[in-house]
């Protein structure tokens, strides 16, 4: 077996585990910049997996998608988020409403839950159980990060993790959607992050803080 086949097989076999590790580390992370790096790592793992799939399936479209993931999710979005963090000059704390240990335990629970959920589907559709579970876990983890972290930027990161989950679900079940659709989704994502960044600055300028749990003028 050549080196490339070996790498591809390894990437397919172990990417789910690495994704779980990034999730647990994200739950434990106390600084926003750590979370950004973890998000970038997570996307890089997914890119590796897509490359492996592309190699196994000899599909040119999959190579293009992998390139998109690397450009948009591994480099561009994390870079933009770092710029925002730097320009905001605000504290780096994620302002979690659960303690670090609690978060890690909740995250572990979510991962177990996602395995429990996907088993019947994986059986009937004859799909890889680990990756499907990883996709659902990313979805749940993103939602968890969004509700438990009070900083506006962490909500953006939570959303990105959630989106990664959906992307992984598409990838493992159907080997991705048609390329044009994929490009459109990436474009939307990029614009969404750009706009959210804009709003983060506006929140800072009008409220002089970034704690979204204190945004409660509009109720009822």
């Amino acid at each position, binding site marked *: 077996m050549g080196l490339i086949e070996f790498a591809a097989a390894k990437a397919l076999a172990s990417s789910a585990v690495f994704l779980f590790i990034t999730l647990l580390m994200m739950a434990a992370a106390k600084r926003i910049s750590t979370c950004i790096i973890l998000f970038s790592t997570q996307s890089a793992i997914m890119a590796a997996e897509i490359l492996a799939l592309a190699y196994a399936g000899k599909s040119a479209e999959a190579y293009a998608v992998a390139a998109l993931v690397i450009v948009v999710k591994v480099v561009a979005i994390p870079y933009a988020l770092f710029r925002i963090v730097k320009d905001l000059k605000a504290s780096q704390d994620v302002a979690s409403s659960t303690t670090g240990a609690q978060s890690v335990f909740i995250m572990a629970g979510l991962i177990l839950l996602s395995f429990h959920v996907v088993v019947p*589907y994986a059986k*009937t*559709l004859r799909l890889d159980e680990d990756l499907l579970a990883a996709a659902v876990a990313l*979805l749940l983890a993103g*939602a968890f990060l*969004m509700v438990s972290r009070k900083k*506006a930027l962490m*909500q953006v990161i939570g*959303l990105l993790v*959630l*989106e990664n989950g*959906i992307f992984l*679900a*598409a990838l493992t*079940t*159907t080997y991705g*959607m*048609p390329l*044009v*659709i994929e490009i*459109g*989704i990436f*474009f*939307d994502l990029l*614009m*969404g992050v750009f*706009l*959210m960044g*804009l*709003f983060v600055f*506006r*929140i800072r300028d*009008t*409220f002089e803080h970034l704690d*979204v749990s204190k*945004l409660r*003028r*509009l109720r*009822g």
Partner: protein
Amino acid sequence: MTLLLLLLVPFCAALIVLTCKEPERAVRVAIAAGTLQMVAIANAVWRIRSAGVVQFGRYLRADGLTAFFLLNIAVILALVLVYSIGYLRHIPAGRFSSPRWFYSLTFLFTFTMIAVYLSASLGMLWICVESTTLASALLVGFYNTKGAVEAGWKYLVVCTVGIAFALFGTIALYLAAVKSGVNPASALDWSVLMNAAPGLAATRDLVKLSFVFVAVGYGTKIGFVPMHSWLPDAHAEAPTPISAMLSAALLNCALYALLRFDTITSHAIGSAFSHTLLLIFGCLSITVAALLMVVQRDLKRLLAYSSIEHMGIVALGIGIGGPLGILGALLHTFNHSIAKSLMFFTAGSVRESFGTLRMRRIHGMARSVPFTSAGLVVGALAIAGMPPFALFISEFMILTAAFTASRYFIAILLLLVLSVVFGALLHHVQRMLAGKRTEEPARLKPLPSQFAVMGICTTYLIVFGICIPRVFANLLQRALVVLQ
């Protein structure tokens, strides 16, 4: 080509209007582009009427349902553009808040909504619905006040998460189609899916899973309870013409997306599952929204909750099904959009002359601003579903459908809700109309163009309440055929 033109006009308009530094020029460019867009839409609707289905390339497609909703958006755009001429006097010159930015974003918003209607593929549809959020978020936060920024942020985050669920649902349907042997390259085109739908029955669970996610996802955008939290804030904090557009065009746009999925799901696994889900969302929405309408203090929030209630009624109409139910639902989307625009326009004029939208601080409207008051009364009666206004007809159709389908619980709930809504609107409106004016005299007099728009809405509501013109009925019929 006809279809491409529909997208090119607003897109170019959005770019051109940005170069106009003086407000007057921006207004003129916007009106010209709006007129051009009307012509383009009329042409497209005409083409669709004669050809049935119009297709451009692989990604643009329009049929009877599209034509119906295109007409809706054309009417709303025209009303909003004319109303904005007067309303723009309020926009202070800020970095992003000037008339040219307002118009540019409005045209971009229109562009994305029309793109939703023209998408031939469910993936494209998703991309376009998500872009409507992105295009309108800046408009919601346009005033840059604390409330507006908060509403914009909430809108952006809640809707993006909601729509992400719809993407998951779309993928699930795609998977079901691919597993059932549809060619992966075209397994997202709704025309292909419609034909292949009976074959999807083998992957029943996946189709169900997909519809649940899509209903929650696009339901967030439609404003179904319990995913409605963004809606009142966004409607209340956006500039008034945009509130009208959100309520009258955007909600219908999301509803259109759900309708496409509903039709495919019904063809694949029977209508029982998807329609029950819609009935549940509909019942929840009308009940919660009606009760919350009673306790509202801000006029625009009251209207926003009324939008949730009406979207619930539309969901009920589709959920009950049958030609009458669906016809009622489609007609109701159109009627509601006109009545709600009228209400938002009057709310804008109230803000202009009273400087507030707090209903408790507004008194003596009937004497000091008779025309606006007349608009308010007509609008309130119309959205409460009183005859002789158009919404009475569509609500009556939905109720009749409910009784004929022996859905007595839903029919009675709907009747109860309608009476609560009527009481709430009457209570709020009469308190504003009666009494003596306590605030300082009028700050700004509304322009004739604003009254003209209100007049057009009123005329529509009365005419369509008495008899529906044949051309329109024909259009409605063609939209209905697509859904069956």
